[in-house]
């Protein structure tokens, strides 16, 4: 079990008082705090890979943290692509990493 990345006793900012809820990422059941951005909940679970580049498949994660760079797009069931840095976590959310896609025009098939 790896050490949690949550800062539970911040010397100046105190504690976070948010409810613990469950969600899934790529099918795996995880816990996070209600209302925190999806990217934060995943990071707290040591998950940094949020998507694969659609063409190359290279791993990508949170970059700007303010909704600007679009790097943190994940697939949220029922909602399509969302920015993980801005989308608040809710109980039962089913989230998948953004995936590499075949290219129907160039004919590249691996995904």
């Amino acid at each position, binding site marked *: 079990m790896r050490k949690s990345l949550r800062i539970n006793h911040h010397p100046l900012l105190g504690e976070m008082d948010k409810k613990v809820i469950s969600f899934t990422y790529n099918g795996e059941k995880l816990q996070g705090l209600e209302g925190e951005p999806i990217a934060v909940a995943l990071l707290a679970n040591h998950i940094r890979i949020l998507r694969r580049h659609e063409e190359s498949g290279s791993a990508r994660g949170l970059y700007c943290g303010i*909704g600007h760079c679009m790097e943190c797009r994940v697939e949220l069931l029922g909602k399509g692509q969302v920015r993980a840095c801005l989308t608040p976590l809710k109980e039962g959310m089913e989230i998948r990493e953004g995936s590499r896609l075949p290219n129907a025009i160039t004919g590249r098939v691996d995904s």
Partner: protein
Amino acid sequence: MRHVNEGYIVCRCEEVTGKQLEDAYLLGAITSRQLKMKTRATMGACQGRVCRQLVNLWLSKKDQCADKGVEPLSYRTPIRLVTFGELAGEE
């Protein structure tokens, strides 16, 4: 060793490297607009929010009197992530 490894990515969204900018430049793409059209730099998901200034900076260092060919502040609706559904006004 001033130019450390120019093979790395500059435009994150479209995975365009400094090397690709260089190659396109050598083949005649000498304005930032031409670089963009030839390499797709700035044309991805962030619409150049991250790399547009890098491409312009690179070009200005490449060629002091480069005609940048873009208005640095040309923006068009939508400037934020919005789906076809949101744009259409369908929730």
